[in-house]
């Protein structure tokens, strides 16, 4: 391998990125050393197994990835603002839309939601941590390392450029040689391990660790949606693992699963990809539905409307999610019967989704609606998501889809569901549970500005794209001619995109502003909430969450207790020592070996891959012989933490 193939060269923007990456790293190292923070970093964060801290790290990583993916998006929008622009060349543009899609789905949306699930779900079910805290740390670190491996591609070796769907044979060695596509395969593979482990971990946590009295049908809706999501993850992710492995064999070891030669089947990749990929979109939307259910109910000061219908519709959606993947390639020529069947199953998903929309609306009916920022995002979700929903039904009609497929109509549709659904939920959930994580609320005034700028920008950006699609503009073109007439709407769209960028900056400013000036919460119940996570006495729950595990008597247990004026006060004599898991540095070290192995495979340096894999197995073996049963928190320490007067 030559140097000009190892470092990406020739573009001033890339050099700028090189410099800023080096400067940032030097800055971080300097800060940690000067303020003697290394030990703090290791003890408090790198070795933690606390679900709340892992959740926060997930969310911080996701916000960073949102920035990265957002910059990608704005670069694309800049290039498309005017016809025949020369801002990016074709190869560069292709790399950017590939990384934008991959990062936003795999490294932004999923970790953001998993982060919130991590923070909230154990608290909502009255548990002290997840079922497998150590495994939870492995999940986070493999995700993080996978994300980092994928991200360095743009300065070292070059980014993948075959689209986030990586259709074969385009993504094969013959048509896309070099490390780029390998980064995609290895980055997703390593991060995928973490996701699958999360799926297992939270399934067991929710099924086995609920507080006494919390039957399945007394679980908060966000916990329910997380449970269903975990089931989808457990069924869907192995498909991705296998598909990625097969393509890795094709690229590194010369097999012919999907290649042009040796009777490979490129359609098989498309099928496997979407057999995972469609459930994947429900993995990122169901937790969003759960969050909106919580938020709408809280700020309407009212019980969720049609609780059971909400659960059944979610289960129905989860089942359907595995029966619709063919709608991603109606144009593959599968024949009339196949297309008809998948048209109908796809449209049928609209039924339970529609039911949910009406249930949310009727949760507000006869309520007392407070327009807090999380509630604004939820209302914005209903209004915007419906547009994504109805255009989804339009796309489901295969005969019409032949005209929408591969156009901006599709691009607009999936941004309307993924942004108005998932991203709105991430923002709403982050703001809603912010006091639980940091002990203070984000400023509401600035928050409302963020909401309005973002929502208006979002519509200005994506609504015109429906018309661009109907006017025949295909997705993934890096430029277009003046005569096409697509110029004006693209310009409008770009303006909207930059509005969303500004809103993101204001959001980050709000985090800084609130960190400095926000009033600190004195109780654990910042929003007059309904579910158990709000019942902890302190704003931020202690590391063991609950000094005494609550006993649940019904849905919205905490709210009903408050209504009845029967919130229990903790007394010293009912406390018992609490069993907690020990911190461990092994997950972080194991993930670092994964990085070595992944990097070696990306560049086809097998010696390095083998060293990395030996490290991975070494840490696994080490862990198997580690006899650590955790430790007990003494009653004295609990009394001190909870500030109980004796």
């Amino acid at each position, binding site marked *: 391998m*030559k140097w*000009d193939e190892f470092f990406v*060269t*020739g573009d001033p923007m890339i050099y700028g990125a090189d410099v800023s990456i080096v400067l940032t790293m030097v800055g971080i190292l300097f800060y940690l050393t000067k303020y003697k923070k290394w030990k703090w970093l290791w003890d408090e964060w790198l070795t933690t197994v606390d679900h709340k801290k892992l959740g926060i790290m997930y969310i911080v990583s996701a916000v960073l990835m949102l920035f990265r993916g957002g910059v990608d998006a704005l670069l694309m929008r800049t290039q498309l603002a005017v016809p025949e622009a020369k801002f990016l060349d*074709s*190869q560069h543009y292709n790399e950017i839309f590939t990384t934008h899609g991959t990062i936003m789905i795999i490294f932004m949306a999923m970790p953001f939601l998993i982060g919130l699930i991590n923070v909230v779900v154990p608290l909502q079910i009255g548990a002290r941590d997840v079922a497998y805290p150590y495994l939870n740390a492995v999940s986070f670190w493999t995700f993080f390392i996978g994300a980092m491996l994928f991200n360095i591609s743009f300065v070292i070796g070059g980014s993948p*450029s*075959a689209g986030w769907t990586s*259709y074969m*044979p*385009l993504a094969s060695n013959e*048509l*896309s*040689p*070099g*490390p780029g596509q390998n980064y995609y395969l290895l980055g997703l593979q390593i991060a995928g391990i973490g996701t699958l482990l999360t799926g297992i971990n939270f399934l067991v946590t929710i099924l086995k660790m609920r507080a006494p009295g919390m039957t399945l049908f007394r679980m908060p809706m966000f916990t329910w949606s997380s449970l269903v999501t975990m089931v989808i993850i457990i069924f869907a992710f192995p498909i991705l693992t296998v598909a990625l492995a097969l393509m890795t064999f094709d690229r590194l070891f010369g097999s012919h699963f999907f290649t042009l*030669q040796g009777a490979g089947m490129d359609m098989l990749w498309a099928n496997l990809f979407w057999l995972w990929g469609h459930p994947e979109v429900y993995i990122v939307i169901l937790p969003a539905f759960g969050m909106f259910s919580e938020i709408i109910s809280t700020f309407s*000061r*009212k*019980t969720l409307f049609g*609780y059971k*219908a909400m659960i059944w519709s979610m289960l129905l959606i989860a089942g359907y999610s595995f029966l619709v993947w063919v709608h991603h*390639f109606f*144009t*593959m020529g599968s024949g*009339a019967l196949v*297309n*008809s069947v998948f*048209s*109908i199953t796809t*449209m049928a998903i609209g*039924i339970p989704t*529609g*039911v949910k*929309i*009406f249930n949310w*609306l*009727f949760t*507000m009916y*006869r*309520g*007392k*609606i407070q327009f807090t920022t999380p509630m604004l995002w939820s*209302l914005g979700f*209903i*209004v915007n998501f419906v*547009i994504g929903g*109805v255009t989804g*039904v*339009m796309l489901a*009609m295969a*005969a*019409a889809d032949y*005209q929408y497929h*591969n*156009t901006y109509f599709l691009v607009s549709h999936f941004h309307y569901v993924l942004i108005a659904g998932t991203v709105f939920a991430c923002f709403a959930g982050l703001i809603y549970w912010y006091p639980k994580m940091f002990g203070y609320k984000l400023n509401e005034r600035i928050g409302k500005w963020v909401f309005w700028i973002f929502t208006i920008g979002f519509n200005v950006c994506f609504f015109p794209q429906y*018309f661009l699609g*109907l006017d025949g503009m*295909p997705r993934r*073109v890096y430029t277009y001619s003046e005569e096409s007439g697509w110029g004006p709407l693209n310009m409008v769209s770009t303006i909207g995109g930059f509005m969303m960028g500004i809103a993101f900056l204001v959001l980050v400013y709000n985090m800084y502003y609130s960190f400095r000036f926000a009033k600190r919460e004195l109780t654990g119940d910042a929003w007059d909430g309904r579910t158990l996570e709000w019942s902890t006495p302190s704003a931020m729950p202690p590391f063991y969450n609950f000094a005494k595990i609550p006993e649940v008597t019904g849905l919205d247990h905490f709210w009903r207790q408050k209504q009845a004026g029967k919130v229990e006060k903790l007394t010293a004599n009912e406390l018992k020592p609490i069993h907690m898991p020990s911190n461990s540095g092994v997950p972080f070290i194991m993930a670092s070996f994964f990085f070595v192995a992944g990097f070696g495979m990306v560049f086809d340096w097998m010696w390095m891959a083998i060293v990395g894999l030996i490290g991975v197995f070494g840490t696994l073996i080490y862990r198997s012989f580690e006899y650590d049963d955790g430790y007990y928190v003494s009653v004295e320490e609990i009394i001190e933490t909870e500030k109980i007067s004796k």
Partner: protein
Amino acid sequence: MMRRLKPFLPFGLMMAVFMLSGCSDMIVLDPKGPVGEEQKDLIMYSIWFMLFILLVVYALTAFIVYKYRDRKNHKGYDPDNEGSHLLETIWWIIPIIIVIALSIPTVKSIYSLEGPPEESKDQKPLVIHATSVNWKWVFTYPEQDIETVNYLHIPEDRPVLFKLTSADSMASFWVPQLGGQKYAMAGMETELYLQADEQGTYEGRNSNFTGEGFTDHTFDVMAMSDAEFEKWASETKAEAPELTKGQYDKLMLPGHVKEMTFSSTHLDWVDHSKNAEYALDARERLGYEEKIPHSRAAKEEKKKREEEMKKQEESESHGDSHAH
């Protein structure tokens, strides 16, 4: 009131823009043949349904959010109102009815688009093989025994049966004003019926991402009268140069070319729907190797490609035109 309704303003405005702008400006909604016509009808049918759904949801949202906002003298608060069998049954049933109403015409259209258009069922369709090679289209007229690159001539009012395949990446053959697309895949053949009812030139393209040259992976379709088409075909057969294997192998290299015309076809020696490896073999024969993007070699090759394209354009402007 206005303050609370603000969220709905942008959508109202945009809906208005959509309704006023007139759908016929957009090419998918301005079809020039029965296939596109059928798809347009289906699209418009669904749009009316969707606008109705949006209207219902927005009206309900506006009403509830306005009426039940937290304020002084708030009335009607009922914190334990947790469901209603009647209401929930209603909104299970209505979407089911809508899905049925949309499914029936959809399935009908899916089946009808598999064959030639109803109105010209009695005519024998013109068969054209369309083969995608990064980043050009090779069109073969087996009955006329001629071949074109990057442009198509078709007779109007007669169904055309496209037999689609690809020499390398998966492409999608799409002429929006004539009708929807279908994939072209190496080692496979898919079929697509289209028909033009009006004379004119329509833009066609590959709409499925195929790498660096994807944006210009386009072609023109010229629809003409039957007589004109027959004349063009026989002239081409008589006057255009023959396609040699060497020349065809060069077409297998990734890159763009100008329009070309030949009086023989590549089907004489290869059918890409049966042989997925031909293009890669040809590249090997010519000593071509795909370069790692960003490498110096890739940059040099890109430059070379651009120069060659320029040369082609120059030779064309010197009156060396093809039989169009």
